[in-house]
Protein backbone atom coordinates (compact mmCIF):
# COMPACT_ATOMS: atom_id res chain seq x y z
CA UNK A 1 0.00 0.00 0.00
CA UNK A 2 0.95 3.66 -0.11
CA UNK A 3 4.10 4.84 -1.74
CA UNK A 4 5.36 1.48 -2.88
CA UNK A 5 2.02 0.67 -4.50
CA UNK A 6 2.01 3.98 -6.34
CA UNK A 7 5.54 3.42 -7.56
CA UNK A 8 4.64 0.01 -8.93
CA UNK A 9 1.60 1.35 -10.70
CA UNK A 10 3.68 4.06 -12.34
CA UNK A 11 6.22 1.49 -13.37
CA UNK A 12 3.51 -0.70 -14.87
CA UNK A 13 2.00 2.17 -16.86
CA UNK A 14 5.39 3.22 -18.13
CA UNK A 15 6.16 -0.30 -19.19
CA UNK A 16 2.87 -0.54 -21.05
CA UNK A 17 3.38 2.71 -23.00
CA UNK A 18 6.34 1.43 -24.99
CA UNK A 19 4.55 -1.57 -26.52
CA UNK A 20 1.43 0.50 -27.19
CA UNK A 21 3.50 3.14 -28.95
CA UNK A 22 5.24 0.52 -31.09
CA UNK A 23 1.96 -1.04 -32.15
CA UNK A 24 1.71 1.14 -35.24
CA UNK A 25 5.08 -0.19 -36.33
CA UNK A 26 3.89 -3.76 -35.75
CA UNK A 27 0.75 -3.10 -37.78
CA UNK A 28 2.76 -1.52 -40.56
CA UNK A 29 5.07 -4.50 -40.80
CA UNK A 30 2.11 -6.87 -40.50
CA UNK A 31 0.32 -5.19 -43.36
CA UNK A 32 3.41 -5.17 -45.56
CA UNK A 33 4.00 -8.86 -44.83
CA UNK A 34 0.38 -9.83 -45.48
CA UNK A 35 0.41 -8.01 -48.79
CA UNK A 36 3.66 -9.47 -50.00
CA UNK A 37 2.99 -13.01 -48.83
CA UNK A 38 -0.52 -13.12 -50.24
CA UNK A 39 0.49 -11.28 -53.39
CA UNK A 40 3.60 -13.38 -53.98
CA UNK A 41 1.91 -16.18 -56.01
CA UNK A 42 0.68 -13.60 -58.51
CA UNK A 43 4.13 -12.04 -58.83
CA UNK A 44 5.63 -15.50 -59.28
CA UNK A 45 3.08 -16.68 -61.81
CA UNK A 46 2.97 -13.53 -63.95
CA UNK A 47 6.48 -12.19 -63.36
CA UNK A 48 7.11 -8.91 -61.54
CA UNK A 49 7.93 -6.83 -64.61
CA UNK A 50 5.08 -8.24 -66.65
CA UNK A 51 2.75 -7.68 -63.74
CA UNK A 52 3.70 -4.04 -63.25
CA UNK A 53 4.26 -2.99 -66.85
CA UNK A 54 1.73 -5.24 -68.58
CA UNK A 55 -0.78 -3.27 -70.61
CA UNK A 56 -3.80 -5.49 -70.08
CA UNK A 57 -5.81 -6.10 -66.96
CA UNK A 58 -8.24 -8.87 -67.90
CA UNK A 59 -8.33 -11.20 -64.90
CA UNK A 60 -11.47 -13.09 -65.97
CA UNK A 61 -10.49 -13.71 -69.60
CA UNK A 62 -9.29 -17.04 -70.86
CA UNK A 63 -6.35 -16.87 -70.78
CA UNK A 64 -6.33 -14.06 -68.17
CA UNK A 65 -4.00 -11.05 -68.37
CA UNK A 66 -2.60 -9.57 -65.20
CA UNK A 67 -0.89 -6.34 -66.22
CA UNK A 68 -1.56 -3.45 -63.87
CA UNK A 69 0.09 -0.67 -65.86
CA UNK A 70 -3.32 0.83 -66.82
CA UNK A 71 -4.29 0.92 -63.14
CA UNK A 72 -1.02 2.55 -62.08
CA UNK A 73 -1.33 5.19 -64.78
CA UNK A 74 -4.94 5.82 -63.77
CA UNK A 75 -3.95 6.26 -60.13
CA UNK A 76 -1.27 8.76 -61.04
CA UNK A 77 -3.50 10.73 -63.40
CA UNK A 78 -6.29 10.99 -60.86
CA UNK A 79 -3.92 11.85 -58.02
CA UNK A 80 -2.04 14.44 -60.01
CA UNK A 81 -5.29 16.00 -61.19
CA UNK A 82 -6.60 16.07 -57.64
CA UNK A 83 -3.49 17.86 -56.43
CA UNK A 84 -3.90 20.48 -59.15
CA UNK A 85 -7.26 21.28 -57.59
CA UNK A 86 -6.50 20.76 -53.93
CA UNK A 87 -3.22 22.65 -53.57
CA UNK A 88 -4.18 26.04 -55.02
CA UNK A 89 -7.57 26.00 -53.31
CA UNK A 90 -6.20 24.67 -50.02
CA UNK A 91 -3.24 27.05 -49.86
CA UNK A 92 -5.38 30.01 -50.90
CA UNK A 93 -7.98 29.22 -48.22
CA UNK A 94 -5.24 28.87 -45.63
CA UNK A 95 -3.71 32.22 -46.54
CA UNK A 96 -7.12 33.79 -46.43
CA UNK A 97 -8.14 32.37 -43.06
CA UNK A 98 -4.74 32.83 -41.42
CA UNK A 99 -3.83 36.27 -42.69
CA UNK A 100 -6.71 38.16 -44.19
CA UNK A 101 -10.10 37.10 -42.83
CA UNK A 102 -11.58 38.88 -39.84
CA UNK A 103 -11.96 36.71 -36.72
CA UNK A 104 -15.69 36.40 -37.39
CA UNK A 105 -15.23 35.10 -40.92
CA UNK A 106 -12.46 32.77 -39.77
CA UNK A 107 -14.69 31.26 -37.11
CA UNK A 108 -17.28 30.52 -39.81
CA UNK A 109 -14.95 29.11 -42.45
CA UNK A 110 -12.98 26.75 -40.24
CA UNK A 111 -15.92 24.67 -38.95
CA UNK A 112 -17.31 24.48 -42.49
CA UNK A 113 -13.95 23.13 -43.68
CA UNK A 114 -13.95 20.57 -40.90
CA UNK A 115 -17.47 19.56 -41.90
CA UNK A 116 -16.27 19.06 -45.47
CA UNK A 117 -13.55 16.75 -44.13
CA UNK A 118 -16.09 14.69 -42.23
CA UNK A 119 -18.34 13.87 -45.21
CA UNK A 120 -18.07 10.13 -46.01
CA UNK A 121 -16.28 9.41 -49.29
CA UNK A 122 -19.25 7.48 -50.64
CA UNK A 123 -21.27 10.68 -50.44
CA UNK A 124 -18.57 12.49 -52.39
CA UNK A 125 -18.86 9.68 -54.92
CA UNK A 126 -22.58 10.31 -55.32
CA UNK A 127 -21.90 13.99 -55.69
CA UNK A 128 -19.48 13.20 -58.50
CA UNK A 129 -21.94 10.91 -60.28
CA UNK A 130 -25.03 13.09 -60.13
CA UNK A 131 -23.60 16.60 -60.10
CA UNK A 132 -20.09 17.01 -61.52
CA UNK A 133 -20.07 14.29 -64.15
CA UNK A 134 -23.13 15.61 -66.12
CA UNK A 135 -21.59 19.08 -66.10
CA UNK A 136 -18.28 17.76 -67.43
CA UNK A 137 -20.05 15.73 -70.06
CA UNK A 138 -21.99 18.77 -71.30
CA UNK A 139 -19.28 21.42 -71.02
CA UNK A 140 -16.48 19.34 -72.54
CA UNK A 141 -18.71 17.41 -74.96
CA UNK A 142 -17.46 14.00 -73.77
CA UNK A 143 -19.18 10.64 -74.27
CA UNK A 144 -19.23 10.17 -70.48
CA UNK A 145 -18.64 12.40 -67.49
CA UNK A 146 -17.48 9.46 -65.39
CA UNK A 147 -13.77 9.86 -66.09
CA UNK A 148 -10.41 10.75 -64.60
CA UNK A 149 -11.19 14.45 -64.39
CA UNK A 150 -14.42 13.81 -62.52
CA UNK A 151 -12.59 11.70 -59.95
CA UNK A 152 -9.75 14.22 -59.76
CA UNK A 153 -12.10 17.10 -59.02
CA UNK A 154 -13.87 15.26 -56.22
CA UNK A 155 -10.64 13.90 -54.74
CA UNK A 156 -9.22 17.40 -54.92
CA UNK A 157 -12.22 18.72 -53.06
CA UNK A 158 -11.79 16.01 -50.44
CA UNK A 159 -8.13 16.88 -49.96
CA UNK A 160 -8.74 20.62 -49.58
CA UNK A 161 -9.46 20.53 -45.83
CA UNK A 162 -6.28 18.51 -45.20
CA UNK A 163 -4.11 20.81 -47.26
CA UNK A 164 -5.76 23.95 -45.88
CA UNK A 165 -5.54 23.08 -42.21
CA UNK A 166 -1.89 21.98 -42.27
CA UNK A 167 -0.92 24.96 -44.41
CA UNK A 168 -2.72 27.27 -42.02
CA UNK A 169 -0.81 25.84 -39.07
CA UNK A 170 2.45 26.37 -40.95
CA UNK A 171 1.57 29.95 -41.84
CA UNK A 172 0.44 30.81 -38.32
CA UNK A 173 3.72 29.44 -36.98
CA UNK A 174 5.78 31.99 -38.94
CA UNK A 175 7.22 34.32 -36.35
CA UNK A 176 6.04 37.89 -35.93
CA UNK A 177 9.67 39.05 -36.09
CA UNK A 178 9.84 38.07 -39.75
CA UNK A 179 6.62 39.87 -40.59
CA UNK A 180 7.87 42.95 -38.76
CA UNK A 181 11.15 42.83 -40.65
CA UNK A 182 9.22 42.82 -43.91
CA UNK A 183 6.84 45.62 -42.92
CA UNK A 184 9.73 47.71 -41.64
CA UNK A 185 11.32 47.57 -45.10
CA UNK A 186 8.27 49.15 -46.66
CA UNK A 187 6.48 45.97 -47.74
CA UNK A 188 2.69 46.00 -47.65
CA UNK A 189 0.58 43.19 -46.30
CA UNK A 190 0.30 41.31 -49.57
CA UNK A 191 4.03 41.51 -50.32
CA UNK A 192 4.74 40.33 -46.79
CA UNK A 193 2.45 37.32 -47.23
CA UNK A 194 3.80 36.33 -50.65
CA UNK A 195 7.49 37.07 -50.19
CA UNK A 196 8.04 36.36 -46.51
CA UNK A 197 5.29 34.36 -44.83
CA UNK A 198 4.63 31.74 -47.51
CA UNK A 199 8.32 31.08 -48.27
CA UNK A 200 9.01 30.77 -44.54
CA UNK A 201 6.17 28.25 -44.25
CA UNK A 202 7.16 26.28 -47.32
CA UNK A 203 8.27 23.14 -45.53
CA UNK A 204 4.90 22.95 -43.76
CA UNK A 205 3.08 23.62 -47.01
CA UNK A 206 5.10 20.85 -48.61
CA UNK A 207 3.99 18.46 -45.87
CA UNK A 208 0.42 19.51 -46.53
CA UNK A 209 0.80 18.67 -50.21
CA UNK A 210 2.30 15.26 -49.42
CA UNK A 211 -0.54 14.39 -47.10
CA UNK A 212 -2.97 15.57 -49.75
CA UNK A 213 -1.28 13.29 -52.29
CA UNK A 214 -1.40 10.29 -49.94
CA UNK A 215 -5.06 10.95 -49.28
CA UNK A 216 -5.86 11.16 -52.98
CA UNK A 217 -3.73 8.14 -53.92
CA UNK A 218 -5.31 5.93 -51.28
CA UNK A 219 -8.92 7.06 -51.65
CA UNK A 220 -11.05 4.16 -52.87
CA UNK A 221 -14.79 4.57 -52.78
CA UNK A 222 -14.88 7.87 -54.64
CA UNK A 223 -12.74 6.71 -57.53
CA UNK A 224 -14.63 3.43 -57.71
CA UNK A 225 -17.82 5.39 -58.21
CA UNK A 226 -16.63 8.37 -60.19
CA UNK A 227 -13.69 7.41 -62.39
CA UNK A 228 -15.59 5.30 -64.91
CA UNK A 229 -13.80 1.96 -64.45
CA UNK A 230 -12.44 1.35 -67.98
CA UNK A 231 -9.60 -1.19 -68.16
CA UNK A 232 -7.39 0.22 -70.91
CA UNK A 233 -4.32 2.39 -70.41
CA UNK A 234 -5.88 5.87 -70.12
CA UNK A 235 -4.85 8.17 -72.97
CA UNK A 236 -5.79 11.36 -71.12
CA UNK A 237 -7.56 12.61 -68.01
CA UNK A 238 -10.81 12.88 -69.98
CA UNK A 239 -11.43 9.16 -70.44
CA UNK A 240 -12.90 6.63 -67.99
CA UNK A 241 -10.23 4.81 -66.00
CA UNK A 242 -9.76 2.38 -63.17
CA UNK A 243 -7.21 3.32 -60.47
CA UNK A 244 -5.56 0.63 -58.33
CA UNK A 245 -7.71 1.17 -55.26
CA UNK A 246 -10.95 0.97 -57.25
CA UNK A 247 -9.78 -2.27 -58.83
CA UNK A 248 -9.08 -3.93 -55.50
CA UNK A 249 -12.35 -2.80 -53.93
CA UNK A 250 -14.43 -3.57 -57.00
CA UNK A 251 -13.06 -7.03 -57.70
CA UNK A 252 -12.29 -8.47 -54.28
CA UNK A 253 -15.86 -9.69 -53.91
CA UNK A 254 -15.85 -11.70 -57.12
CA UNK A 255 -12.32 -13.12 -57.09
CA UNK A 256 -12.19 -16.77 -56.07
CA UNK A 257 -10.11 -17.15 -52.92
CA UNK A 258 -6.79 -18.74 -53.77
CA UNK A 259 -7.02 -17.94 -57.48
CA UNK A 260 -4.37 -15.94 -59.31
CA UNK A 261 -6.87 -13.08 -59.55
CA UNK A 262 -7.22 -13.08 -55.75
CA UNK A 263 -3.45 -13.02 -55.24
CA UNK A 264 -3.05 -10.38 -57.94
CA UNK A 265 -5.36 -8.02 -56.04
CA UNK A 266 -3.10 -8.33 -52.99
CA UNK A 267 -0.12 -7.73 -55.23
CA UNK A 268 -1.76 -4.50 -56.42
CA UNK A 269 -2.18 -3.57 -52.78
CA UNK A 270 1.52 -4.16 -52.25
CA UNK A 271 2.44 -2.00 -55.25
CA UNK A 272 0.20 0.78 -53.95
CA UNK A 273 1.75 0.46 -50.52
CA UNK A 274 5.26 0.55 -51.99
CA UNK A 275 4.48 3.65 -54.08
CA UNK A 276 3.17 5.44 -51.01
CA UNK A 277 6.20 4.49 -48.94
CA UNK A 278 8.63 5.59 -51.65
CA UNK A 279 6.72 8.80 -52.05
CA UNK A 280 6.76 9.59 -48.33
CA UNK A 281 10.46 8.78 -47.99
CA UNK A 282 11.26 10.99 -50.96
CA UNK A 283 9.20 13.76 -49.43
CA UNK A 284 11.02 13.41 -46.12
CA UNK A 285 14.33 13.56 -47.95
CA UNK A 286 13.40 16.67 -49.93
CA UNK A 287 12.03 18.34 -46.81
CA UNK A 288 15.24 17.78 -44.89
CA UNK A 289 17.26 19.16 -47.79
CA UNK A 290 15.00 22.22 -47.96
CA UNK A 291 15.49 23.05 -44.32
CA UNK A 292 19.24 23.31 -44.49
Amino acid at each position, binding site marked *: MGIKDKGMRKNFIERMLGPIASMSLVFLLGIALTLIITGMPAFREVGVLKFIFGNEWRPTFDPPYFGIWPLIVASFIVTFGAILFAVPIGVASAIYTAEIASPGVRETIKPVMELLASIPSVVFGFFGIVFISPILQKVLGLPTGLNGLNAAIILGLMAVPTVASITEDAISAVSKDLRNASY*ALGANKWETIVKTVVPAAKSGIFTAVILGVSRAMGETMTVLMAAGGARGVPSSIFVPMRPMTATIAGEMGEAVIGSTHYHALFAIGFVLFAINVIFNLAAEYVKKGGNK
Partner: protein
Amino acid sequence: MSEEPKITVRNFNAYYSGKMALKDVNIDIPENKIMAMIGPSGCGKSTFLRSLNRMNDLIEGFTVTGGMMIDGKNIYDKDVDVTKLRRNVGMVFQKPNPFPKTIFENIAYGLKINKLCKSRDELSGKVEESLKEAGLWEEVKDELNKSAFALSGGQQQRLCIARAMVVRPEIILMDEPTASLDPISTAKIEELIQELKKSYTIVIVTHNMQQAARVADRTAFFMLGEMVEYSDTSVMFTKPEKKITEEYITGRFG
Protein backbone atom coordinates in the same frame (compact mmCIF):
# COMPACT_ATOMS: atom_id res chain seq x y z
CA MET B 1 20.23 74.12 -32.15
CA SER B 2 20.62 76.30 -35.16
CA GLU B 3 19.68 73.75 -37.79
CA GLU B 4 16.14 72.62 -38.49
CA PRO B 5 15.74 69.31 -36.61
CA LYS B 6 15.16 66.16 -38.66
CA ILE B 7 12.42 64.92 -36.39
CA THR B 8 10.13 67.18 -34.39
CA VAL B 9 7.68 65.72 -31.91
CA ARG B 10 4.99 67.89 -30.36
CA ASN B 11 2.45 67.05 -27.66
CA PHE B 12 2.60 63.42 -28.70
CA ASN B 13 0.34 60.96 -26.88
CA ALA B 14 -0.01 57.26 -27.62
CA TYR B 15 -2.56 54.75 -26.38
CA TYR B 16 -2.94 50.98 -26.47
CA SER B 17 -6.70 50.36 -26.55
CA GLY B 18 -7.27 53.62 -24.73
CA LYS B 19 -4.57 52.98 -22.15
CA MET B 20 -2.01 55.75 -22.19
CA ALA B 21 1.52 54.69 -23.08
CA LEU B 22 3.12 58.02 -23.98
CA LYS B 23 2.15 61.32 -22.44
CA ASP B 24 2.77 64.70 -24.01
CA VAL B 25 6.18 63.97 -25.46
CA ASN B 26 8.08 66.89 -27.02
CA ILE B 27 11.40 66.21 -28.65
CA ASP B 28 13.62 67.54 -31.43
CA ILE B 29 16.07 65.14 -33.03
CA PRO B 30 18.85 66.73 -35.08
CA GLU B 31 19.99 65.35 -38.42
CA ASN B 32 23.00 63.02 -38.65
CA LYS B 33 23.16 62.58 -34.92
CA ILE B 34 22.56 59.63 -32.67
CA MET B 35 19.76 59.97 -30.18
CA ALA B 36 19.49 57.37 -27.45
CA MET B 37 16.49 56.62 -25.28
CA ILE B 38 16.95 55.09 -21.88
CA GLY B 39 14.57 54.26 -19.08
CA PRO B 40 13.13 51.33 -17.13
CA SER B 41 11.06 48.62 -18.85
CA GLY B 42 7.61 49.77 -19.84
CA CYS B 43 8.59 53.45 -19.79
CA GLY B 44 7.40 54.00 -23.35
CA LYS B 45 10.75 54.27 -25.11
CA SER B 46 10.03 51.37 -27.46
CA THR B 47 6.51 52.68 -28.09
CA PHE B 48 8.05 55.99 -29.03
CA LEU B 49 10.57 54.36 -31.34
CA ARG B 50 7.93 52.26 -33.07
CA SER B 51 5.76 55.32 -33.51
CA LEU B 52 8.45 56.88 -35.68
CA ASN B 53 7.90 54.38 -38.50
CA ARG B 54 4.31 53.59 -37.55
CA MET B 55 5.09 49.95 -36.77
CA ASN B 56 2.59 50.35 -33.96
CA ASP B 57 -0.14 50.63 -36.57
CA LEU B 58 0.09 46.83 -36.75
CA ILE B 59 -1.09 46.59 -33.16
CA GLU B 60 -4.85 46.61 -32.88
CA GLY B 61 -6.22 49.44 -30.77
CA PHE B 62 -3.14 51.65 -31.03
CA THR B 63 -3.95 55.35 -31.40
CA VAL B 64 -2.03 58.61 -31.20
CA THR B 65 -2.69 62.31 -30.84
CA GLY B 66 -0.35 65.21 -31.38
CA GLY B 67 2.30 65.65 -34.01
CA MET B 68 5.32 63.67 -35.12
CA MET B 69 7.05 65.52 -37.93
CA ILE B 70 9.85 64.33 -40.19
CA ASP B 71 11.24 67.20 -42.25
CA GLY B 72 8.24 69.21 -41.16
CA LYS B 73 5.67 66.69 -42.44
CA ASN B 74 3.41 65.03 -39.89
CA ILE B 75 3.76 61.28 -40.47
CA TYR B 76 0.32 60.68 -38.95
CA ASP B 77 -1.40 62.84 -41.59
CA LYS B 78 -4.04 60.99 -43.60
CA ASP B 79 -2.23 61.37 -46.91
CA VAL B 80 0.96 59.67 -45.70
CA ASP B 81 1.84 56.42 -47.48
CA VAL B 82 2.99 54.19 -44.62
CA THR B 83 5.06 51.90 -46.83
CA LYS B 84 6.98 54.90 -48.17
CA LEU B 85 7.45 56.19 -44.65
CA ARG B 86 8.91 52.85 -43.57
CA ARG B 87 11.26 52.86 -46.52
CA ASN B 88 12.49 56.24 -45.36
CA VAL B 89 12.66 55.23 -41.70
CA GLY B 90 14.46 51.91 -41.43
CA MET B 91 14.40 49.67 -38.38
CA VAL B 92 16.66 47.20 -36.65
CA PHE B 93 15.07 44.93 -34.08
CA GLN B 94 16.12 43.63 -30.70
CA LYS B 95 16.56 40.06 -31.84
CA PRO B 96 18.33 39.60 -35.17
CA ASN B 97 15.52 38.60 -37.53
CA PRO B 98 16.98 37.64 -40.90
CA PHE B 99 14.58 36.05 -43.37
CA PRO B 100 14.99 32.31 -43.91
CA LYS B 101 16.63 33.11 -47.22
CA THR B 102 20.17 33.47 -48.48
CA ILE B 103 22.39 36.31 -47.34
CA PHE B 104 22.03 37.94 -50.74
CA GLU B 105 18.24 37.62 -50.79
CA ASN B 106 18.00 39.10 -47.31
CA ILE B 107 19.63 42.31 -48.44
CA ALA B 108 17.91 42.32 -51.82
CA TYR B 109 14.45 42.02 -50.24
CA GLY B 110 13.90 45.74 -49.64
CA LEU B 111 15.27 46.63 -53.06
CA LYS B 112 12.92 44.18 -54.73
CA ILE B 113 9.85 45.13 -52.70
CA ASN B 114 10.39 48.80 -53.43
CA LYS B 115 11.44 48.12 -57.03
CA LEU B 116 14.62 50.13 -56.65
CA CYS B 117 16.76 48.25 -59.15
CA LYS B 118 16.41 48.02 -62.89
CA SER B 119 18.94 45.28 -63.51
CA ARG B 120 20.49 42.30 -61.82
CA ASP B 121 23.87 44.05 -61.87
CA GLU B 122 22.50 47.10 -60.13
CA LEU B 123 20.94 44.82 -57.52
CA SER B 124 24.21 42.97 -56.85
CA GLY B 125 26.07 46.27 -56.72
CA LYS B 126 23.77 47.71 -54.10
CA VAL B 127 23.82 44.54 -52.04
CA GLU B 128 27.61 44.57 -52.04
CA GLU B 129 27.77 48.27 -51.18
CA SER B 130 25.41 47.83 -48.28
CA LEU B 131 27.27 44.81 -46.89
CA LYS B 132 30.49 46.81 -47.10
CA GLU B 133 28.94 49.67 -45.18
CA ALA B 134 27.82 47.25 -42.51
CA GLY B 135 31.36 45.87 -42.33
CA LEU B 136 30.16 42.41 -43.24
CA TRP B 137 31.36 42.10 -46.83
CA GLU B 138 34.75 40.57 -46.13
CA GLU B 139 33.17 37.94 -43.91
CA VAL B 140 30.40 36.86 -46.27
CA LYS B 141 31.47 37.71 -49.82
CA ASP B 142 32.12 34.06 -50.70
CA GLU B 143 28.92 32.75 -49.19
CA LEU B 144 26.25 35.11 -50.40
CA ASN B 145 24.14 32.15 -51.43
CA LYS B 146 24.26 30.49 -48.05
CA SER B 147 21.39 30.77 -45.60
CA ALA B 148 21.53 33.81 -43.35
CA PHE B 149 20.98 31.45 -40.41
CA ALA B 150 24.50 30.13 -40.90
CA LEU B 151 25.84 33.44 -39.58
CA SER B 152 26.60 34.17 -35.92
CA GLY B 153 24.20 36.34 -33.93
CA GLY B 154 26.39 39.42 -34.30
CA GLN B 155 26.78 38.85 -38.02
CA GLN B 156 23.04 38.37 -38.35
CA GLN B 157 22.43 41.69 -36.64
CA ARG B 158 24.89 43.44 -38.95
CA LEU B 159 23.10 41.74 -41.84
CA CYS B 160 19.84 43.22 -40.54
CA ILE B 161 21.46 46.64 -40.38
CA ALA B 162 22.71 46.23 -43.95
CA ARG B 163 19.23 45.11 -44.95
CA ALA B 164 17.74 48.26 -43.44
CA MET B 165 20.37 50.52 -45.05
CA VAL B 166 20.17 49.17 -48.57
CA VAL B 167 16.96 51.03 -49.38
CA ARG B 168 18.68 54.29 -48.39
CA PRO B 169 16.49 55.50 -45.56
CA GLU B 170 17.22 58.84 -43.94
CA ILE B 171 16.54 57.64 -40.43
CA ILE B 172 17.38 54.32 -38.82
CA LEU B 173 15.60 53.16 -35.67
CA MET B 174 17.27 50.60 -33.45
CA ASP B 175 15.39 48.78 -30.74
CA GLU B 176 18.01 47.49 -28.30
CA PRO B 177 20.08 46.18 -31.19
CA THR B 178 22.73 44.53 -29.02
CA ALA B 179 20.50 43.13 -26.28
CA SER B 180 21.01 39.55 -27.44
CA LEU B 181 24.68 39.81 -28.41
CA ASP B 182 28.01 39.08 -26.77
CA PRO B 183 30.38 41.96 -25.84
CA ILE B 184 32.59 41.62 -28.92
CA SER B 185 29.66 41.66 -31.32
CA THR B 186 28.21 44.55 -29.35
CA ALA B 187 31.41 46.54 -29.74
CA LYS B 188 31.37 45.95 -33.48
CA ILE B 189 27.78 47.13 -33.77
CA GLU B 190 28.49 50.23 -31.70
CA GLU B 191 31.43 51.04 -33.92
CA LEU B 192 29.18 50.61 -36.93
CA ILE B 193 26.52 52.89 -35.47
CA GLN B 194 29.14 55.64 -35.05
CA GLU B 195 30.12 55.20 -38.66
CA LEU B 196 26.52 55.31 -39.85
CA LYS B 197 25.66 58.68 -38.39
CA LYS B 198 27.58 60.35 -41.21
CA SER B 199 24.79 59.30 -43.53
CA TYR B 200 21.81 58.66 -41.28
CA THR B 201 19.92 60.06 -38.36
CA ILE B 202 19.84 57.32 -35.75
CA VAL B 203 17.42 56.78 -32.91
CA ILE B 204 18.34 53.96 -30.57
CA VAL B 205 16.62 52.42 -27.58
CA THR B 206 18.93 50.81 -25.09
CA HIS B 207 18.76 49.17 -21.72
CA ASN B 208 22.43 49.65 -21.33
CA MET B 209 23.35 53.08 -20.04
CA GLN B 210 27.04 52.69 -20.86
CA GLN B 211 25.98 52.07 -24.41
CA ALA B 212 24.02 55.31 -24.51
CA ALA B 213 27.00 57.11 -23.00
CA ARG B 214 29.34 55.56 -25.57
CA VAL B 215 27.41 56.07 -28.77
CA ALA B 216 24.82 58.82 -28.42
CA ASP B 217 25.08 62.54 -29.06
CA ARG B 218 21.81 63.23 -27.33
CA THR B 219 20.03 61.14 -24.72
CA ALA B 220 16.43 61.12 -23.55
CA PHE B 221 15.32 59.59 -20.29
CA PHE B 222 11.81 58.18 -20.28
CA MET B 223 9.75 57.12 -17.32
CA LEU B 224 6.11 56.03 -16.99
CA GLY B 225 5.31 57.21 -20.50
CA GLU B 226 6.79 60.65 -20.06
CA MET B 227 10.01 62.10 -21.30
CA VAL B 228 11.65 63.24 -18.12
CA GLU B 229 14.84 64.75 -19.45
CA TYR B 230 16.52 65.27 -22.80
CA SER B 231 19.96 66.75 -23.27
CA ASP B 232 23.42 66.21 -24.68
CA THR B 233 24.67 62.83 -23.58
CA SER B 234 27.68 64.30 -21.80
CA VAL B 235 25.41 66.53 -19.75
CA MET B 236 22.93 63.77 -19.05
CA PHE B 237 25.55 61.47 -17.58
CA THR B 238 27.56 64.05 -15.67
CA LYS B 239 25.10 66.56 -14.29
CA PRO B 240 21.52 65.56 -14.97
CA GLU B 241 18.95 68.25 -14.23
CA LYS B 242 16.46 66.11 -12.36
CA LYS B 243 16.96 64.02 -9.31
CA ILE B 244 15.06 61.05 -10.70
CA THR B 245 17.31 60.96 -13.76
CA GLU B 246 20.36 60.91 -11.55
CA GLU B 247 18.89 58.11 -9.47
CA TYR B 248 18.22 56.02 -12.55
CA ILE B 249 21.62 56.67 -14.06
CA THR B 250 23.43 55.81 -10.88
CA GLY B 251 21.49 52.58 -10.67
CA ARG B 252 19.30 53.26 -7.70
CA PHE B 253 16.32 51.76 -9.54
CA GLY B 254 15.48 50.37 -12.92
